[in-house]
């Protein structure tokens, strides 16, 4: 019988949106929320895969909740989810709610209809997209782009908080290499580090 626990700091539970911090230093999350009010309450967060769109969306939702808004978080997996979005858009109180929608562009042309409906009701909506779809003319609230320094900081934070082993370390050169190999996709970078960490943490055990 064994009571060994190989906790991997790069597991989905530790790196998923909301679990990792948003490390931008140039603007605070509250400032982003106020910027949303300035642009008429509806906006887009735009950026490539794994650049932190869902992470900032999740943190923005937390801040809005702390500001007293009722927050509805939705994630689109296919165009069928348009029904769910429509139901939320139709039933919420526009003055006291914020709707955050991840992967908005998956709605396709149905998104255009939902944009019109949100405009008509004056809802407060933030959505994430990889590239602005032609049918959506909401302003861009933020353009996310991950950099090498952010990746290293996040890895350091994850290792400090969740690493089961204190002997495993990743060099700066290795992290730069991982980051560049995945073209700035933090999620893919974390997944590669998951494998490295798993391998290194089990070597001493496997040799016994």
């Amino acid at each position: 019988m064994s009571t060994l626990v190989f906790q991997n700091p790069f597991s989905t539970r530790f790196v998923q949106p909301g679990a990792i911090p948003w490390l931008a230093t140039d603007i605070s999350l509250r400032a982003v929320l106020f910027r949303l009010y300035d642009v008429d309450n509806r906006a887009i967060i735009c950026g490539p895969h794994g650049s932190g769109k869902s992470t900032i969306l999740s943190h923005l939702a937390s801040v809005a909740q702390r500001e007293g808004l009722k927050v509805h978080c939705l994630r689109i997996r296919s165009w069928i989810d348009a029904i769910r979005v429509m139901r939320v858009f139709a039933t919420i109180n526009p003055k006291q709610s914020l709707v955050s929608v991840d992967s908005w562009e998956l709605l396709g042309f149905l998104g255009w209809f939902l944009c019109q409906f949100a405009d008509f009701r004056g809802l407060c909506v933030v959505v994430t997209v990889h590239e602005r779809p032609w049918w959506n003319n909401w302003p861009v609230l933020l353009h996310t782009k991950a950099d090498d320094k952010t990746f290293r900081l996040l890895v350091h934070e994850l290792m400090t908080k969740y690493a089961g082993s204190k002997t495993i370390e990743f060099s700066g050169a290795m992290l730069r290499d991982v980051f560049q190999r995945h073209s700035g996709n933090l999620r893919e970078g974390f997944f590669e580090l998951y494998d490295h960490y798993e391998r290194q943490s089990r070597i001493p055990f496997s040799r016994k």
Partner: protein
Amino acid sequence: MTESKRVDQNTLGSYRIQPNPRISVTFNRENIQYGGGDELRTHYIVEGIESQSISAVERSVVWYTEGKGEEDLGVVFFERIQLERRKDSTQTSSASLSTDHLTGALATDLPQSPLSYEGIIVKIRWCVRVRVFFRSGRDFVSEHIFFLGSVPVVRLPAKIET
């Protein structure tokens, strides 16, 4: 009684405005290993914070998967204890909570499966989870791992190891 490996998570980690509590859980088995159908009995203590800052405590016994994919979760025991604020700002105590430092106990029968598993791609973990909700809106979760069954830990294939 024994204390197990602990994982603490702060859902609003970036916005800490008050210190995190220390939550310790002790189990009724020294080696924290249980079999299917066994009774799990635990006792927990929440320390390091003012008790009147807490609005509720949730305690649960859950299993979850951990790895590179999406997580699965199963709950075998769940209880939420809502704490009311008195006029003199001291904490009211529920049947299983004391006031000086919050303490509590829980007991439940464990199911036959899923068994704890320490794989490479995926792991299955069992834990006692204590979640503290603060009046400020923040919450804090502490997980205390135990083991169901005795599936051996997965070893690295020899060619990867070398």
